[in-house]
């Protein structure tokens, strides 16, 4: 039996702080809207609280399962296959907001693309564990390693959810980089993605409008620029100290999605620069401790898993905050641990459970 050290306290604390902050902000951002829609201010909070409880329970369970259990082909390919199936399956469900992102089962609904991220990470870790030394062999190692990511990303693009697809590829790249992929392959990959991205952005009108709006939001302030402008107003209103919890105005039906994808704008408005910076600091600590866990581990499988899970959280956080601050065109990506959204929160917490387990292993 491997000797165990205690779980990484920094990671554990940061995760709980982010979830706690998320619950407060979800309540603050959604209370008025919830009363309007459901007659109770607590409606969103209670649901999110349920998911957070379930997620933390899952994290604690996963944290105590030896990560080495996952290095079996039966588990890896079942997970990957199941995810593919669901991603194809979403097209059978009715669309919401003109997209096929959700699978609804009674009162529950979740996005299969959330599962794609851990499925890709697990496959990469499994596949690269025995082959990473030969990663320069692009035909037999690099390509088959990246193939499932490309397939899943293509399915996710089809939903359409370009943001999550881009996040999946960024996670894949991080793991391949840690596995020793030469930077020039990253360059080739980038070049190769330009053509599909061109068609996916320039030839899909709403995306193109988002790009235009991103470049100059005030050209169409009531239309495509509205979202970004409202977000920026929220951030600037917050100033250094913020308006105070519950005191924000932008969430009052100016800023769309104040409790989900744009919750960071609400944080900036109500908690000011200090609150916004706190979130950045918490994610930075998460990044540092996650990468440290990966780099210090001698087991390649653990290294790749830890890298992937860390990237999964940080890449999404980075994209989300960039969008809110107008540094990136609008993408439908939640802020991990914080944004309202059950399936995202639950799956993220279960995934970081694996990372926490890796921190407990002495090797």
């Amino acid at each position, binding site marked *: 039996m*491997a000797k165990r050290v205690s779980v990484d306290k920094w990671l554990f604390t940061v995760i709980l702080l982010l979830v706690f902050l998320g619950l407060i902000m979800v309540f603050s951002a959604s209370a008025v809207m919830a009363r309007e829609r459901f007659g109770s201010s607590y409606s969103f909070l209670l649901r999110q609280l349920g998911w957070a409880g379930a997620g933390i329970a899952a994290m604690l369970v996963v944290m105590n399962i030896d990560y080495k259990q996952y290095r079996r082909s039966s588990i890896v390919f079942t997970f990957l296959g199941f995810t593919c199936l669901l991603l194809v399956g979403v097209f059978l469900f009715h669309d919401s907001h003109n997209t096929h992102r959700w699978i609804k089962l009674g009162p529950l609904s979740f996005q299969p693309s959330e599962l794609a991220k851990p499925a890709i990470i697990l496959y990469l870790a499994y596949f690269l564990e025995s082959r*990473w030394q030969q990663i320069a062999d692009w035909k037999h190692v690099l390509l088959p390693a990246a193939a499932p990511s490309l397939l899943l990303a293509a399915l996710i693009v089809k939903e359409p959810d370009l943001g999550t697809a881009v996040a999946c590829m960024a996670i894949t790249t991080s793991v391949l980089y840690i596995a020793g992929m030469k930077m020039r392959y990253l360059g080739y990959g980038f070049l190769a993605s330009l053509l599909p991205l061109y068609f996916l952005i320039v030839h899909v009108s709403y995306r193109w409008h988002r790009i235009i709006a991103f470049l100059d939001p005030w050209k169409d302030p009531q239309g495509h620029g509205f979202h970004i402008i409202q977000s920026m107003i929220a951030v600037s209103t917050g100033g250094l100290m913020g308006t105070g919890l519950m005191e924000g105005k932008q969430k009052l039906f100016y800023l769309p999605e104040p409790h989900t994808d744009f919750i960071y704008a609400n944080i900036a408005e109500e908690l000011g620069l200090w609150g916004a910076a706190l979130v950045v600091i918490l994610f930075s600590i998460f990044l540092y401790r996650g990468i440290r866990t990966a780099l*210090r581990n001698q087991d390649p499988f653990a290294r790749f898993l830890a890298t992937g899970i860390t990237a999964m959280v940080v890449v999404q956080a980075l994209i989300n905050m960039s969008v809110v601050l107008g540094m990136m065109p609008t993408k439908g990506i939640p802020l991990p641990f914080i944004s309202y959204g059950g399936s995202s929160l639950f799956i993220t917490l279960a995934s970081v459970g694996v990372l926490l387990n890796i921190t407990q292993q*002495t090797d």
Partner: protein
Amino acid sequence: MEVKGKRVLVVGLGKSGIASALFLADRGARVAVSDTKSEEELPREIPLLLDRGIVVEAGYHGERTFKEQELIVISPGVPADVPQLLQARQAGIPVIGEVELAARYLKGKIVAITGSNGKTTTTTLAGEIIAASGRQTLVGGNIGTPAISFVESATDETWIVLEVSSFQLETIETFHPKIAVVLNVTPDHLDRHHTFANYAAAKARIFENQASNDFAVLNADDATCIAMADKTKAGVYWFSRQREVDHGAFVSGDSIIWRGAAKEQAVMPIAEISLKGTHNVENVLAAVCSGMLAGVDPAHIRRIVANFKAVEHRLEYVATIRGVQYYNDSKATNVDATIKALESFPSGIHLILGGKDKGSDYSVLNSLLENRVKRVYTIGSAAAKIESQVRGSEVVGAGTIDNALRRASESATPGDIVLLAPACASFDQFVSYEHRGRVFKDLVKQMEARELQHAGSARAGGKG
């Protein structure tokens, strides 16, 4: 040295590699091991390491495995010029041997013994001599228990007697023996050191960290040893079988004399030594030097030397069958050790020679073969090379050790000697030289048992 939380790679899964990996893991390092042997060849080692949370790479040395480490510890069997190791050194990763790792943690006084031949005997004997003085003494190193395994039990008062090989000395940095002994330097391991000068230089590193209050013990009958005296800051003591020395131990008449800084005294008569062979007189002299320098009472030394029997596999007597004596010198893994073995018997030798060639020149055996050896029986992969170089004695290609033993016992006459002193490594047919020696001894014991049974039934038949 703090290794907690550090990434450390241990290269080579021999005894010392495993001991190092477990030691490092116990101290909280993140340990990986790498060995070119396949998983099938390491059936016991791998589970043991995995159980301790150590990551195992078997069957190859991954280039990248070596890149991302904070410390690399290599085992004696691993050539220092493996490309992955060279790269790691270039990248600035510290690369040390197991002896150096031990040196960073070991308390107590170290007696380090090196040389081309006689290390094991001298180390064992010196260890027993120092132990006889009543001090806590640990004996090991290249043979037996790896030095790293002594860290737990050694205190400042402990004496640690270590056999160190030239390979181990190549990777030291701070290793600092109180008493450093070089027995002799003869061409050996040229397959790894490439030149004799490199090899001698590696041996001389044993003095590297010694100061003026330490001791260097050198063979006054060995030209290379004599040249080493200039390289040490330590006080030099000599031993010689052939002449008197200024300070040290030597043979005078039929006695061993010790000449210390203050006075001269007789230690014991040569005739009391129970070890066979002239080379063993040198080993005894070196051990006497170590004992005297460690402050052991000469009376204790005399008693220990008189009772000391040969080390297993080192010119070890096995049995006498129909007047033929069988000796196991499986530890003779080079030509020079075989020469020393042959010198121990004046004539009538049936010599079993061969195994895995180490790039040796076997023609140097020729004059001894002509004078002392009746027949040579070759075994293993070096057979063809030996047969092409050896002259002066009849050579029989026997292939395996049991075949060689059978043919030798058939042609040997009473008074002859059957000697396993193969001058080669064992790895083509055996796990180790110990394994080779044990197989030889088992076969001889079986022969002896059959012979006794046969004699018994013959007597019974005669009565009836």
